[in-house]
């Protein structure tokens, strides 16, 4: 480039550097030192603590004491999610197939429930959803006379293998059931929820492209009675293994008619 160093440039270079360094010095003086120290004095913090907090080296605000908590952990579910677990759940394995024979009596060999009124379909269900329910049955966060006993002997690796195995099956084709069409208010709840009651759209979590919570199960292809029974269990609080009472707070706001309507909607809907 043809810009040889030109004596007339020196002032520009000088002024530019001075301007920037002075702004930086001003900000460091106030932002890093004066503001934290004076604020800290008001909150009974020594200068060093408040400067560390202002710099983000220590947690807390330089202007207020940090609250403490000695609460004991009482989780509603003990599942500990991790990247490794999610990757394992995405890989079906042979071990899962052999274990699955024990579940065929109710859930069917390929995950298609022998009686959809009582036992949920597992074929094509989200692996994370199956794993969480198995884990909760084993830990007692969710109780069921049959499933609690079935889950007890399983190790975590076995539960992962079983979940990945059933999730790998294609979803059952919908048998033509002569259920009455659920009607517009139900479809509005599914697609838009009800802001007045703070109910999010069901498909915000259960829909296909929703990006909702990791353990939210697929609801399509389940039996009408099974879905309605689970919703009522959440509403009564009999079932309480949903993390941070997500389903309990929604179910509590639903009327009985809506519970039956939503169960009917999802049982006859192929893909949503």
């Amino acid at each position: 480039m043809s810009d040889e160093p030109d004596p007339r440039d020196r002032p520009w270079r000088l002024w530019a550097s001075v301007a920037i360094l002075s702004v930086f010095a001003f900000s460091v003086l106030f932002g890093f030192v004066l503001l934290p120290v004076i604020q800290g004095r008001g909150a009974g913090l020594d200068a060093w603590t408040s400067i560390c907090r202002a710099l983000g080296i220590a947690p807390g605000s330089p202007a207020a004491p940090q609250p403490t908590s000695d609460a004991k952990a009482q989780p509603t579910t003990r599942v500990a999610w991790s990247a490794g677990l999610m990757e394992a759940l995405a890989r079906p394995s042979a071990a899962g197939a052999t274990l699955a024979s024990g579940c065929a009596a109710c859930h069917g060999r390929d995950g298609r429930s022998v009686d959809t009124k009582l036992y949920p379909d597992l074929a094509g269900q989200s692996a994370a959803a199956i794993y969480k329910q198995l884990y909760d049955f084993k830990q007692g966060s969710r109780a069921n006379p049959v499933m609690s006993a079935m889950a007890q002997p399983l190790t975590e690796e076995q539960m992962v293998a079983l979940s990945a195995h059933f999730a790998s099956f294609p979803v059952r084709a919908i048998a033509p059931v002569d259920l009455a069409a659920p009607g517009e208010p139900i479809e509005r709840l599914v697609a838009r929820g009800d802001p007045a009651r703070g109910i999010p759209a069901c498909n915000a979590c259960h829909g296909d492209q929703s990006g909702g919570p990791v353990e939210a199960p697929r609801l399509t292809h389940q039996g009408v009675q099974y879905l309605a029974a689970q919703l009522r269990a959440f509403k009564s609080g009999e079932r309480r293994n949903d993390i941070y009472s997500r389903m309990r707070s929604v179910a509590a706001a639903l009327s009985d008619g809506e519970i039956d309507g939503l169960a009917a909607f999802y049982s006859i809907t192929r893909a949503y």
Partner: protein
Amino acid sequence: MTHARNLTFAHLWVAFIAFTIALVLGVWQMWARSPLPAPFLTASTYFSSVTAHGTATAYVLTTFMVMGFGYYVAETALARPLPAPRWAWIAFALGVVGTLMAVVTILTGRAAVLFTFYPPLIASVFYYLGLVLVVAASWIWCVLMLVAMGQWKRANPGRPVPLAMFATVANAVMWLWTTVGVAAELLFQVIPAALGLKAEMDVGLSRTLFSWTLHAIVYFWLIPSYIAFYTMVPQAAGGRLYSDTMGRLTFVLFLIYSLPVGLHHLLMDPQQSNAFKFLQVALTALVSVPTLLTVFTIGASLEIAGRLRGGRGLFGWIAALPWERPMVLATGLAFLMLGLGGFGGLINMSYGMNAMVHNTSWVTAHFHLIFGGTVVIMYFAIAYAIWPTLTGRAAPSLALQRLQLWLWFIGMLVMTLPWHTLGLLGQWRRVATFNYADPIIAAWGPWVIVSLIGGVILLASGLLFVYNLLEFNVAREPNAEAPGALYATAVHPPARVPATLNGFRLWNALVLVLMVLAYGYPLAQFFIIKSPEALVHRVDERR
């Protein structure tokens, strides 16, 4: 005008098609969130529409406008053919393919993550690859601009680079600096997660990387409008540019101060410390200086024009200005919107005061006024000014052009003024359906309808703009002016300009120093404290 004619034509038409789509979606969104029932409304359609509206305006309209106008300036201001036009067409193709990839993924509802991506929400990988292609296209454009300036300087040793080209290259240098942030976030975090290679992400790091890009990108959009202010408006008004040196300094100040200030988008984030937020707020305060300088310099240039046309007294020159010319009218309206939007911006940037307005409609009003208002109305004015050169025909009807500009100004004010009040009342952003049964929200209903009316006026103005461009094809009189005639001459045309104001070596060094000081620790902390990662939540595949 050799290669640039078709290149500029192609780029600007892609930009204005994306603009029209985004405009229609924008008005539907305003209808959807108003108390009036709107069709096709579900959470999925609304947030896919917001993603499309943002992607079309922030990535497609702007990048193609900057590239198209850059090619036009490179050929007409430097008065020499564009180097390597083949690469310019390759870049154009990359950009169009990338845009189509992004649009298709959004339309199939597999990219409802909005155009600012909210990791750990992850969309289909094709949405991100589409945006990477558009950014890659813009990088090729940056190289072409640098090469064009380098060739010109070798052919004209010692002479100052024409201001329009100097500003375009300043924009290209700033864009190369700023895309480092979003490129790092996409290539190292978001795309690996979208491909399923990673099941979790460091959200604090990705937000900080995106903030690196988030402010300088708005100046990347803004600089073509400022090029018009400095080089086309004084000429259109019949005056001279008050100070060429100050023009160069303004674009250099934009390059330096728009980069190390991204944290003012994260003032309400827990993972960045007070100290570095304060440092970047102080630097943000300096970003308003080049804009205030521009207000004075362009004001002085217009005063020269006004006096030449017989304007008397302190403000008599204002009335004497040729307001019937679209470029002059657009500038007046643009500065009014810049004042209102700038007022909103001063409050957004004020450290603790940001808590009053963060993620409320106040912020939406700020960037619609400055980007949607000042920047886009100057895009219209630039299009009206260069269309005669591109089509070889004179403008058929200035009256329709002026009407379109007025409609855009009025629509923008009617839409954004209620948003300021709603923002202070607490109306939050990106909402598909408001619960108008709630007493606090019910009070907002009438204001939302008023801003919807503003949106409808903007739609009418946007469609009239496209009509005005199409009308050139049926116009009969040939275009009179030469392309070079658009650029203003300064009161004192610079014979010699200090090397620092003719190249970017010093300014790149200062930007590097500032970025290390302002973003060094804020980025390093995520590797020092080993911050925990969040599970990926995919929005593109079956549950």
